């Protein structure tokens, strides 16, 4: 598919330089507009991740979903069917393409060791292993089973979990399930502030 912008086909208006030296060219005149860049893209319905209006968006990706294609986002536009935004988007929603395709994205796990002044790369398995070890150590060292009055409290209140504003319900539920299972009390979210 030709995605180049403003690639004009010229029926009559242009070209044929010598022939139209005197300018009179009686072919019917139709000027070609640019190719519709989303004419052949694959569309995915999503929800804008910014404010709480929940604008429906359509993410256009290259390719038709075939096995051998890694879909890349080429355009994001409002979903005209969505009852709230009816296709409209604000300046943030309109620029979501640059949020999805952004060269500032973090692409690999990193660790900053104590006292260090730089990031080091770390393998996923290693990072998970270290985090789990540290978490368990901390929990076992500070877990409160009973309070001063002898009441069962089962609290792990030395580790805090801060949830983000764009975490989905399902993810948040997994957070509640896993963190409360460990006894985490310092559970907060962007929702608070």
């Amino acid at each position, binding site marked *: 598919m030709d995605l180049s912008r403003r690639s004009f086909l010229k029926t009559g208006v242009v070209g044929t330089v010598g022939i139209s030296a005197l300018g009179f060219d009686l072919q019917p005149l139709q000027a070609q507009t640019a190719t519709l860049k989303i*004419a052949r893209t694959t569309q995915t319905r999503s929800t804008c991740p910014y404010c709480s209006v929940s604008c429906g968006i359509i993410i256009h990706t290259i390719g038709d979903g075939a096995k051998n294609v890694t879909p890349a986002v080429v355009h994001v536009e409002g979903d005209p069917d969505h009852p709230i935004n009816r296709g409209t988007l604000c300046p943030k929603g309109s620029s979501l393409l640059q949020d999805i395709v952004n060269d500032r994205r973090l692409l690999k796990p990193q660790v900053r060791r104590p006292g260090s002044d730089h990031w080091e790369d770390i393998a996923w398995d290693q990072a998970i292993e270290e985090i789990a070890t540290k978490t368990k150590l901390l929990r076992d060292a500070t877990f409160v089973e009973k309070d001063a009055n002898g009441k069962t409290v089962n609290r792990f209140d030395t580790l805090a979990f801060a949830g983000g504003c764009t975490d989905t319900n399902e993810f948040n539920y997994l957070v509640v399930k896993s963190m409360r299972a460990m006894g985490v009390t310092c559970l907060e979210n962007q929702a608070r502030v």
Partner: protein
Amino acid sequence: MSDRKTLQVQRISGHPGPVAGAGMQREEQVCKLIDTTTCIGCKACEVACVEWNDMPFQPTMFDNTYQTMPDTHWNYWNLIKFNEVTNEDGTFQWLMRKHQCMHCADPGCLAACPADGAIVQYRNGIVDFQEENCIGCQFCVSGCPFNVPKFSPTTKKVYKCTLCSDRVGQGLEPACIKACPTGCLHFGTKSDMLMLAEKRVKQLQTVSGFKEAGTYDPQTIGGTSVVYVLHDASNPEKYGGLPKNPRIPLSFTIWKNWFKPIGLIASMMAFAGVILHYVTEGPRRPQPQPPVKEVDGGEGKKEN
């Protein structure tokens, strides 16, 4: 579905004679309605424009305003102009106006453009630059009463809003219109947009107390395919320099259309003149000339 669409052309820049094939199809005039009284200056239209047209980003500077940049740019066709206005009666207004190509019925750019086919006006009212024919003379810049076309020093061509002719050609609305969150932007046929505008103006006058509310569709350039509703139509200048009576300079109308060819002919008269001189008077040779052997027909007046 075809990815491409040709639009019927109504007018062509720098083109001699009539537009061949004009009137072959019916086509409604399309129009953008911009209701500045419900514009919140959110810039969604600016972004939608940049995103749809895949225009490169560029650095901007803080300039004591919410306005993105001082004026539109060759790769930034749509700009909201922000104006803090204290009216004579002491009331304060923060006016926002989406500034872009007005798609004039009588386009100054097209009138000024010398390059055949670099600017076309479609039958639906869209004035579109066909960059491959553009010669970069920038006369359109001067021809435009709204200061819209912008020159790219890199490509040496001039660019502006296309009213998303690629989208409109495929039956879609322009990208800015689609994005506009408040619906201050509207798209449809010109007659429908004028009706909507009139309705809104009446509401502004009777309900909201804007006695001078009105529609901006300047007839000095034959009307536009972008129509504004203003709280105060008596003073469009306060909306970031919207001219009250936009005009195309005479140099791009009378001079270009009439005097240019006449001037050329006049110049060519000199060519005709010297030919005539040669024929009737003959060359002026260093004297003495070689003697004349015989004179054909004349009385030999050259013979002195």
